[in-house]
């Protein structure tokens, strides 16, 4: 029972899978489920402990700041839980969805992604962060190109190109940090960052914003995202939207709050968030492919999260985390539903979805449900997080972002509802009723139920958000726990 399991077990599974693949194809499919189930159990059982007092795990016996540590605090506890649970649901969905060979590679890469993401969330060492980043990225590149018949390779190449930039800049930043203060432990860096000259610090900040901003889909850096989202298999889209981006944003915010927590930086984040949000939503408006539309919507939601983080008050951070949670769930649901819709309509185009509401009533229902939820309508969970974001942003006196967020919400509503309309009302009678596999339905059903329950009892989640937000904002505590247990 240690946070190390979060990294070790999936990593082990990832390498085990190809071997098992030689023996049994079916086992390959099941193992990730078992692993994720175990991780979910682990995360839930560790959760109360981590929230009360951060668990700092020392790897390889070196004490911090020299050794690599895992920092399992409230926010990490929350994010690992989110990642493992969403991961489990995604696995459930993939179980019948990924029917194309080589499945063992898919699950291997999927496990790698989980490893990388949990690693990013857990690690207390900046270079380790980089490594996990790269693990995630490489797995993500490969998964993007998983489907051979599509333009996956092109999307993956773009992703790789930009991703390499990200890693380069991030590594550069690490190099500069190390050159100046000779430490790689995040807590240690946080306590010593003031020793670096201002100009250098600015440079580091910029490099980190660029490096991690690329993965967090900040506006001018997110050219890869729509392609990757739309070309990857649907569950992978859900992984990107639900897991990878969350981890990236977490790392960006963690570094910024630890090292560069000033009003100007936060303002910059708000501005970037607003720009990201608006441009993404506007671009989504006229998309012709449903998954591309979802991708842009995803970028927009990330913009929203960045805004909320950028406000930097406790309620706003809390709201941002809540939004991350909701987005992970709802966007996964949307990707799942869209996956089967695209699969059955035989085309990625939105216009091909006409009348699928009659052919595939349940899947379409889930899509419509997700659409209403992501627009932020009550009584779905999306409503509360959006409301909290708005309240906290306004509380900080930023009325302009409030208005812009709401405008973007209207745009969002327009394009989502157009799709919903098409599903149900553009063709009247059912032509050919086809069934979605049970595992997919169960996955979507779980998400739907969670969304509804959280919508009615937001306290279930919100309750845990306050320590998480404090964890992120409280630099001193992080340094204290990170360095001296």
């Amino acid at each position, binding site marked *: 029972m240690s946070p190390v399991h979060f990294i070790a077990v999936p990593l082990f599974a990832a390498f085990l899978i190809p071997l098992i693949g030689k023996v049994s194809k079916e086992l390959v499919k099941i193992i990730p489920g078992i692993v994720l189930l175990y991780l979910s159990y682990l995360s839930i059982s560790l959760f109360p402990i981590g929230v009360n007092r951060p668990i700092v795990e020392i790897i390889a016996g070196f004490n911090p700041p020299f050794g690599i540590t895992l920092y399992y605090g409230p926010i990490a506890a929350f994010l690992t839980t989110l990642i493992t649970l969403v991961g489990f649901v995604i696995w459930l969905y993939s179980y019948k969805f990924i029917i194309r060979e080589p499945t063992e590679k898919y699950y291997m890469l999927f496990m790698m992604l989980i490893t990388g993401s949990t690693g990013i969330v857990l690690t207390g060492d900046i270079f380790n962060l980089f490594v996990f980043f*790269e693990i995630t990225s490489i797995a993500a590149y490969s998964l993007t190109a998983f489907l051979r018949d599509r333009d996956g390779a092109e999307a993956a190449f773009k992703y790789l190109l930009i991703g390499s930039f990200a890693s*380069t800049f991030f590594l550069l930043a690490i190099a500069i940090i190390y050159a100046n203060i000779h430490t790689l432990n995040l807590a240690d860096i946080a306590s010593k960052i003031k020793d670096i000259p201002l100009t250098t610090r600015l440079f580091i900040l910029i490099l980190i914003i660029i490096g991690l901003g690329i993965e967090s889909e900040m506006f001018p850096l997110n050219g890869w995202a729509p392609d990757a989202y*739309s*070309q990857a298999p649907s569950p992978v889209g859900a992984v990107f939207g639900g897991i990878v981006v969350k981890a990236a944003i977490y790392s960006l915010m963690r570094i910024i709050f630890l090292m560069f927590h000033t009003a100007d930086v936060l303002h910059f984040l708000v501005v970037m968030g607003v720009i990201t949000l608006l441009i993404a939503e506007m671009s989504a408006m006229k998309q012709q492919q449903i998954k591309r539309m979802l991708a842009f919507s995803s970028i927009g939601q990330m913009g929203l999260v960045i805004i909320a983080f950028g406000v930097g008050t406790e309620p706003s951070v809390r709201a941002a985390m809540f939004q991350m949670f909701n987005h992970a769930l709802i966007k996964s649901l949307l990707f799942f539903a869209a996956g089967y819709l695209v699969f059955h309509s035989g085309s990625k185009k939105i216009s091909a979805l006409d009348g699928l509401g009659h052919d595939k009533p349940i899947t379409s229902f889930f899509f419509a449900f997700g659409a209403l939820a992501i627009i932020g309508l009550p009584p779905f969970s999306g409503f509360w997080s959006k409301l909290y974001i708005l309240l906290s942003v306004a509380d900080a006196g930023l009325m302009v972002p409030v208005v812009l967020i709401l405008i973007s919400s209207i745009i969002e509503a327009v394009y989502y509802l157009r799709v919903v309309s098409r599903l149900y009302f553009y063709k009247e009678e059912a032509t050919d009723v086809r069934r979605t596999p049970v595992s997919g339905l169960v996955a979507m059903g779980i998400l739907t139920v969670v969304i509804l329950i959280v919508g009615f009892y937001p306290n279930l989640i919100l309750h845990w958000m306050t320590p998480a937000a404090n964890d992120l904002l409280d630099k001193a505590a992080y340094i204290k726990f990170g360095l001296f247990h």
Partner: protein
Amino acid sequence: MIYYITSILLVLIGMYAVLVKKNLIKIVIGLSIVDNGIHLLLIAIGYVKNGTAPIFSKAGLQPNQMVDPVPQALVLTAIVIGLAVTAVALSLIIRLYDHHKTLNINKIRKLKW
């Protein structure tokens, strides 16, 4: 100092290749050059002139006489990662070439807008 300058030069050259060259392979080469530049930089950070290996092989050896071992470890990791990325990139290029019959990045833009 020369290491720093060299590494920055390498990064810039790589950048140039990535941003200007149209051939996918050249772009990947550019990426590798950038990577190498950074690696060089990392090494340079840990380099101590006339320093020794960071092993207490001789008595009385002060830590400040040793070369910093951490960057070397980092570089090793980074090189491995770079290799992996390059491998993935090249495999992708093969796939792209199968698909598009060209290596010109300007012609590989089916996904847009």
